[in-house]
């Protein structure tokens, strides 16, 4: 739909002013009331998050033996969850950075909470390798620092590249997210009525006063950060895929991994944005800001990245045959029809068969309930993708005498479910205390923000 006032595609619902946008978004944060629903959700999510605390405490006391990891499957849930969570985070960066560079104005409504999602997902993801190292209190050995042992890290290992990729990713995501919120903190500071909120948001806003000189530097910095975050986000999942691709195990040692990991990450990340956005717009009545067009566009991105993922799966099967390698061929057969073959078909159904047939239909893409369902299905499917890659490649490798199986323990499940609770808890705190939609970027898109050459009134003497 073309907006008659601006001549551009309309993304936001009509009839909103600068004031109404501020009021709508700021009041979610500034209201002194605590809604019962929010408290209920927070207490449920918080209790689930306690699971991770218990599981990790027990892990620190007993060691990684409480998990199912052993020979031959030495990488289990921890790595699956790490890759899955990082992948979810990637959509946030994609929305905030890549779509900004492509001047996709519709992203302005969803970028802030997508970035928040990134950070909380990276928090959950980053935990797993650290608790997986066995002696987590020595995890700082991963960093190159002068020490009395006189040893240094091995810079030729993809696992060490991961340390730098993920730590950079976490830092840049937080910086980008915080910088984006500075002007909105200014708005909250000026709008807050309680002394505490004024101090709190005042400190966070670092004295922002909206000078256009500041704004121009701010805009340049945002664009530059977007330009930097784009190659960063692509490199992070590429490096993670190197953890697998550099090894010689059949099913891991393949060149399709980097692009297919990145596409899969974006696929699951968009699914997670939908999982979060659909209840949020309903609960906080933000249908005017996060419209059906947003949901529709996200469906299209999922369709596109889903097709790349489908190509990746197809290529894996093709290469298993084309390579003429006995081991590759057996790996694929075992993955499909072996004792854990069910997980492969779950993945095919959740990632390919169901979403990639239905997402073509516009009616379904704008059906909110259906999109919510599909987002849950795709996230399940992407979790199984990592499960299939990690477990079914490892449990039957070259020598039949070393074959084994993998059966996750209750502590594996407790840690995984616990991080879901941790993620939800952090997200609930975020929507209550921080501006979840960037006010200044929404205002930029309102028809009233268009500079008209000359209005009939208010044109003064110096004109």
């Amino acid at each position, binding site marked *: 739909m073309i907006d008659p006032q601006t001549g551009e595609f309309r993304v936001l619902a009509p009839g909103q002013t600068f004031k109404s946008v501020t009021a709508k978004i700021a009041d979610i944060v500034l209201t002194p009331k605590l809604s019962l629903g929010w408290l209920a959700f927070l207490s449920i999510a918080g209790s689930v998050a306690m699971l991770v605390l218990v599981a990790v405490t027990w892990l620190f006391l007993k060691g990684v033996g409480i998990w199912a990891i052993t020979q031959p499957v030495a990488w289990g849930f921890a790595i699956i969850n790490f890759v899955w969570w990082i992948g979810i985070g990637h959509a946030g960066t994609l929305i905030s950075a890549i779509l900004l560079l492509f001047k996709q104005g519709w992203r302005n409504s969803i970028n802030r909470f997508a970035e928040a999602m990134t950070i909380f997902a990276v928090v959950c993801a980053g935990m797993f390798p650290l608790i997986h190292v066995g002696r987590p209190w020595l995890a700082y050995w991963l960093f190159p620092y002068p020490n009395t042992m006189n*040893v240094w890290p091995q810079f030729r290992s993809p696992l060490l590249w991961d340390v*730098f990729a993920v730590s*950079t990713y976490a830092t*840049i995501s937080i910086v980008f997210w915080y910088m984006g919120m500075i002007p909105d903190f200014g708005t909250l500071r000026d709008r807050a009525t309680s002394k505490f909120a004024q101090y709190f948001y005042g400190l966070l806003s670092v004295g922002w006063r909206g000078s*256009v000189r500041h704004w121009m*530097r701010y805009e340049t910095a945002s664009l530059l950060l977007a330009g*930097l975050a784009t190659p960063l986000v692509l490199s992070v999942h590429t490096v993670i895929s190197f953890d697998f691709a550099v090894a010689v195990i059949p099913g891991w040692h393949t060149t399709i991994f980097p692009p297919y990991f990145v596409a899969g990450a974006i696929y699951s990340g968009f699914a997670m944005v939908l999982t979060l956005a659909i209840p949020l717009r309903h609960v906080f009545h933000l249908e005017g800001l996060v419209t059906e067009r947003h949901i529709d566009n996200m469906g299209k991105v999922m369709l596109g990245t889903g097709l790349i993922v489908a190509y990746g799966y197809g290529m894996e099967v093709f290469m298993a045959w084309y390579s003429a390698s006995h081991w590759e061929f057996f790996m694929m057969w075992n993955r499909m029809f072996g004792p854990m073959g069910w997980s492969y078909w779950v993945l095919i159904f959740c990632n390919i068969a169901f979403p990639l047939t239905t997402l073509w239909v516009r009616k379904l893409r704008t059906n909110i309930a259906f999109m919510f369902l599909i987002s849950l299905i795709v996230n399940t499917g992407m979790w199984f993708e990592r499960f299939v890659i990690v477990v079914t490649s490892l449990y039957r490798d070259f020598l039949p005498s070393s074959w084994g199986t993998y059966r996750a323990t209750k502590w594996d499940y407790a840690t995984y479910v616990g991080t879901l609770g941790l993620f939800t808890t952090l997200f609930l705190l975020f929507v209550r205390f921080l501006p979840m939609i960037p006010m200044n970027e929404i205002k930029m898109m309102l028809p*009233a923000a268009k500079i008209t050459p000359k209005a009939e009134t208010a044109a003064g003497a110096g004109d």
Partner: protein
Amino acid sequence: MIAEFDTPSDLVRAAQAAYKDGWRRMDCYTPYPVEEAAEAIGFHKNKVPLVTVVGGVMGLCAMFSLETWIATLAYPLNIGGRPTYSWPAFIVPAYEWTILFAGLSACFGMLALNGLPSLYHPLFNAPNFRGGATDDKFFLCLEALDPKFDVAETRAYLESFGPTSVVEVEY
């Protein structure tokens, strides 16, 4: 002396006129970036890209030389006689640090160039500034440091643009 406007177009017109009339110590305050207003007051270029490039190059050099030093001098590992200076493997961490340093420089460089964080600014003394500058009002500020400044004349000058109000800021 600040004048308050209801629409960005009014602000841009007033800013253009004031700049044409020789005002230089001036600034506009808006709730979202108004590029036209920055153009109007003659603010075209900023140094954020430069700071970012310098940061990125520093990150690149720091990590690449650290890796080279560790791999060849500090802790050389002989793995099947392979060369110790295996630069292709060093690219990935060096690349990540380029982005890390450039990104941090972009953000903190932007804040530093803006003179932020600052705990105090006289503009916040204006009674109507906090009510609208970050919400839905647009302000043009002509500063007392400008040689053309005169309390009475500047007020009359700003009023000629038809603003909602003109306020003198304690300073």
